[in-house]
């Protein structure tokens, strides 16, 4: 087998082939099933801006950052509210403890007063 060169052989081997029978009809049928008219792609639409990969990634990063910031703010507010509630509970507990101490002090004073009064009466009798 003698051949001029590989490039010619490639051209012969890679000649265009006919598409299968009915190929165009099948494409047109599929296109018709997808919609009566081709999807119009508006030029210079503002949506084209978001079709760019860089812009898409930037938008995704901005949404992620916003979400993280929102969660952080929510956590800070929740912790602050919990701190306020704990502070109020502590103040209430201190007030209760204070009133109990006051009550105990008055009881002690009363007992002391009764004792002093009893001693004086006994001395007078003697």
């Amino acid at each position: 087998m003698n051949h001029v060169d590989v490039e010619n052989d490639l051209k012969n081997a890679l000649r265009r082939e006919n598409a299968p029978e009915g190929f165009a009809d099948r494409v047109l049928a599929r296109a018709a099933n997808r919609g009566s008219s081709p999807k119009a792609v508006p030029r210079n639409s503002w949506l084209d801006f978001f079709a760019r990969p860089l812009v898409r990634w930037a938008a995704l990063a901005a949404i992620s950052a916003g979400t993280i910031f929102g969660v952080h703010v929510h956590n800070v507010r929740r912790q602050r509210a919990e701190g306020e509630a704990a502070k109020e509970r502590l103040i209430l507990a201190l007030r209760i403890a204070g009133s109990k101490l006051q009550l105990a002090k008055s009881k002690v004073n009363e007992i002391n007063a009764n004792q002093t009064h009893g001693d004086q009466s006994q001395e007078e009798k003697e």
Partner: protein
Amino acid sequence: MAERTTPEQSGEIAESDFAEMVRRHQSMVFSIAQHFLADRPAAEELAQDVFLQLHSSLATLKSAEHVTFWLRKVTAHRCIDYKRRRKLPQVSLEDAPEPAAPARSGDPFLARRMRQFVASLPETPRMVVILRYQEEMGAEDIASALDMPLATVKSHLQRSLAMLREKVTRAIGEVTI
């Protein structure tokens, strides 16, 4: 195989031209897919998808030349993506399926072997070779269609040709270069 462009088609592509476009370019799109995939049903499915994408993108195309370039580019990228997505094993020379339609002229045996050799090339060089020798595109057009530097295209072509020469020489033993 240079595409003919009629002067009156330099304006915007009309929607009604779609059927005509399919008939005019079906052989080109199908052949790129068939030579790349060496799988007739897969090639037809891929070619149909390319034309459906064209149908959706008509409003963005401005001329017949633009349509031809767009079809070659989209077909090439879809073919490479298809192979990478499926992660099909590299086709060995013995296992490469036989394309259904034989070459119209030349030595049919050699043409068959040559298509098998081409099918055994890695994906990107294979597409470069198909666009160069089926579509007779220049290296610059191929670089533009495949979004790669011109030097890379030339390098792929040189290495692929050297590899094919070696394979043909080994298989047949008497190729004159």
